[in-house]
């Protein structure tokens, strides 16, 4: 209580400084993305840079929504000089459809990932069967292989399935990435739930399905939300497989379309940044909505602690 003042001040100062540095490191790029999306091309490229937009403008966002209403051709695509903004990359009209594709794929991946992983993790964590550990190790071992090494074999499999250029190709592929990890996360969470609760549920008349539904799922909410978020974000951000497995705009996702805006001769940074801001809106919304479910202590009071 009566510790000397000086060490306390030093401690507070150090904490503040390092917290600020950390926040700057994490949030800096995002802040610059948002700031530059509100600037013209000329303002973005000025030296020294404008950290805050000198004359905030939503012209870049307007361009995105306008792009979907008119056809961009080689003749009319150059609306102005790249340096003075209003330059529209070809393919700008694909941005919003790609966002829809990303959302559809992300939703399917998040939902199916949860369905598959929850049942698999319950079986491995709770039911005693021969080879339960081996099942987990095999599943995790598939993730040791670098994605880039899987691109060609996966392409052949997907092509033989007739799924090339479809959203289904992406859903199937992303599930192969997310399911092993999610099983792993959920197993450790399920194993942390007191075994006596499972026993009590069985005695109370629950088969495995009801035990999962009435005991494990309500108590695993934080892990379920984390899994949901993880699967959605993995799907939302994935680039390499999407690039190979989808070759026309009908099935292409946001990362592919946005990366296409960066062209060899001219790149409209303002437009790309505005597209980037739009691309981070769904994940940010998701984080805001779900963060209140990520709480601990759900099993308090279940067993003698």
């Amino acid at each position: 209580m009566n510790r000397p003042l000086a060490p306390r001040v030093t401690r507070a100062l150090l904490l503040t400084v390092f917290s600020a540095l950390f926040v700057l490191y994490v949030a800096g790029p995002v802040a610059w993305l948002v700031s530059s999306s509100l600037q013209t091309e000329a303002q973005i490229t000025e030296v020294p840079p404008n950290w805050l937009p000198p004359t905030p403008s939503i012209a870049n966002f307007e361009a995105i929504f306008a792009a979907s209403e008119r056809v961009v051709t080689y003749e009319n695509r150059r609306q102005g000089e790249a340096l003075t903004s209003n330059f529209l990359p070809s393919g700008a009209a694909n941005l919003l459809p790609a966002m829809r594709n990303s959302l559809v794929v992300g939703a399917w991946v998040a939902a199916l990932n949860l369905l598959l992983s929850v049942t698999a993790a319950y079986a491995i964590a709770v039911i005693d069967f021969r080879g339960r550990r081996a099942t987990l190790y095999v599943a995790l071992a598939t993730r040791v292989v670098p994605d880039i090494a899987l691109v060609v074999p996966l392409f052949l499999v997907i092509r033989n399935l007739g799924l090339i250029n479809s959203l289904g190709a992406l859903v199937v592929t992303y599930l192969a990435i997310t399911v092993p990890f999610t099983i792993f996360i959920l197993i450790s969470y399920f194993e942390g739930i007191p075994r006596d609760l499972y026993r009590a549920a069985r005695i109370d008349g629950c088969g495995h399905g009801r035990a999962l539904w009435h005991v494990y799922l309500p108590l695993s909410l934080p892990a379920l939300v984390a899994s949901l978020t993880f699967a959605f974000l993995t799907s939302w951000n994935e680039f390499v497989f999407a690039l190979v497995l989808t070759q026309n705009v009908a099935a292409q996702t946001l990362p592919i379309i946005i990366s296409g805006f960066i062209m060899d001769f001219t790149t409209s940074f303002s437009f790309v940044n505005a597209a980037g801001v739009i691309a981070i809106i769904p994940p940010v919304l998701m984080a805001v909505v779900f963060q209140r479910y990520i709480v601990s202590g759900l099993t308090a009071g279940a067993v003698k602690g």
Partner: protein
Amino acid sequence: MARITCAALTKKYGDVVAVDALDLEIAHGEFMVLLGPSGCGKTTTLNMIAGLEEISAGRLSFDDAEVTWTPPHRREVAMVFQSYALYPNKTVRENIASPLPLRRQPAAAIDSAVAAAAAQLEITHLLDRRPNELSGGQRQRVALGRAIVRNPAVFLMDGPLSNLDATLRLSMRGLIKRLHQDLKSTFVYVTHDQAEAMTLADRIAVMRGGLIQQLDTPEGIYERPANLFVAGFLGSPPINLIEGVMAGGAFSRGGWRLALPNPPADGRSVTLGLRPEDVMVAAPGLARLDARVELVSPLGSETHLDVVAEGGLKLTLRVPKEWRAAVGDQIGFGIDPARLHLFDRASELRL
């Protein structure tokens, strides 16, 4: 009501035999206690009766129906766990009701059954709380409520009082005994606490190493222990065990001899069991043996004396509270040969 028949019930974990061909018949409405140290197989036996552990070999029947392979939710058993195992996301009311909706009962029936169980356990005022707002004793009452609300044929209790403090344990013990008298169901109760076993049981099965050592009434177990393990496991302070040989029809140890009724053959190595309370203490010189007091442990209602008798023999004696002894005092004590227990030292069995 149900009669439980275990026939050569066996549980193996790999090469480890946890329960070894256990034969046990539990009668309708009987209060059976499985008693033993940890790792003796008592909880495994209970879990096999519940259906929570797969039975490796043998046969389990309720009345005349075999249930060896019946999953737990089809066995009509209720169980109370040492850890309480309440659903933390549900209120007390929902916890108690939890077995009922799964058995497709109408809502009104559920409400009245929960109310009746809560009244019986005096937890009506707690019905809308959650488990983390309850004390240990209250939680265990809720767990009991969840068991009795089903009116099951068989009650299984896995050390339900082990996590409670001493005073609470005593009152909950009374509650469970009254519950058994009211419900007249078959109870199977697992504990390592001999006082719980003695006070609650109609019969006790003392277990060790996956085997039943003795199956008898509490009095029978205490007064006629079948072997050295049972003799040593029950009784507080524990029974005094004195090793010696039979000579001339008397127990002999060093220079000390004690004539026995019905003595076994001479030359046999035996262990003599003497309960601390089966002695008459007197002034030195007046009784059969003299001893020097080493340790005095007054308990209020009685006093325990650790003494060293002739020949360096260390014994614990239980004396009335009026007996005031000090460390270093000389006392005398007498032994009633009829109250002694004699065991073969090699087989450890009662003679």
